[in-house]
């Protein structure tokens, strides 16, 4: 199995993802330049975190029209696994692969810290290795992570189990105090209707080794590897 990590101008978590997959999980990984027009040979595509195109216009907006995104949309439509982390999540919403939008944090500040995240749906290819409602420690690092969607969309997401991760207390209570950025329903990550596209603001690649302070993100990669095996 091979993971492809898309590199946009301004991506800065591409190497972190590569490191996690290649050196921590010992799987094959390669970089995909944003101007590439083929995803041949890849089993899972990752849109990494960063500041693609300097966050100009809106976060993820310009990257969503990169040549490679046509391929990513086609790959996702055929059921391929696509994981968007942080800026990658923003790009997925701008590209229309996931509903809603990620707006400026309600406190206006860039937030970089470890937060408890609850696994609301553990029956996706990205979360199957977690327990239902398990609370894991994964860091966030963003200024625009305030998830927004209209009432009908959020109702649909909630009703069909498409909210994969929510910000919660360490005990698993979804409260406003546990919400770092103002995201609707404390949404930290959602999956597509088919379940094969996940967008999440927390960074699992930064929480896959004890040396980095947490291994709460390992489940995401272990789940994908299991789904592809």
């Amino acid at each position, binding site marked *: 199995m091979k993971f492809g990590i898309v590199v946009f101008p301004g991506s800065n978590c591409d190497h972190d993802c590569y490191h996690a997959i290649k050196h921590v999980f010992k799987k094959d990984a390669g970089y995909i330049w944003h101007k590439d027009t083929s995803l041949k040979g890849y089993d899972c595509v990752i849109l990494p975190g960063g500041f693609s195109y300097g966050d100009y216009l*809106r976060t993820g907006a310009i990257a969503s029209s990169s040549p490679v995104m046509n391929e990513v949309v086609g790959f996702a439509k055929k059921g391929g696994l696509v994981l968007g982390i942080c800026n990658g999540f923003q790009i997925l919403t701008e590209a229309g692969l996931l*509903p809603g*939008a990620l707006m400026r944090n309600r406190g*206006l500040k860039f937030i970089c810290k470890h937060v408890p995240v609850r696994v609301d749906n553990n029956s996706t290819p990205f979360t199957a290795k977690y327990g239902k409602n398990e609370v894991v420690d994964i860091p966030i690092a963003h200024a625009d992570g*305030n998830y*927004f969607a209209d009432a009908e969309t959020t109702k649909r997401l909630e009703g069909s189990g498409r909210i994969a991760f929510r910000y919660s207390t360490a005990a698993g209570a979804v409260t406003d105090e546990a919400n770092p950025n*103002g995201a609707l329903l404390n949404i930290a990550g959602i999956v597509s209707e088919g379940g094969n596209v996940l967008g999440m603001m927390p960074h699992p690649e930064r929480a896959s080794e004890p040396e980095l302070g947490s291994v709460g993100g390992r489940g995401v990669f272990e789940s994908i590897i299991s789904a592809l095996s």
Partner: protein
Amino acid sequence: MKAKVYVTLKKGVLDPQGKAVMGALKTMSFDEVRDVRIGKFMEIEIDGASIEKEEARLREMCERLLANTVIENYRIEIE
């Protein structure tokens, strides 16, 4: 031809930047300020002879890139 595009947040979408600016204005004793909403203004120069055709093209630009219609509205003016 020159076009002006205004992109504004939809009603009901929280605007923390607008709120912060309003707070600052109040601190400066502009007590009459009731609300501030921050948007974007773009000037676009385009080649084209037909206003109708270019307006349709600009609308497409707004729908596909310039605005995110999940959270934003847009308005186009052509000079």
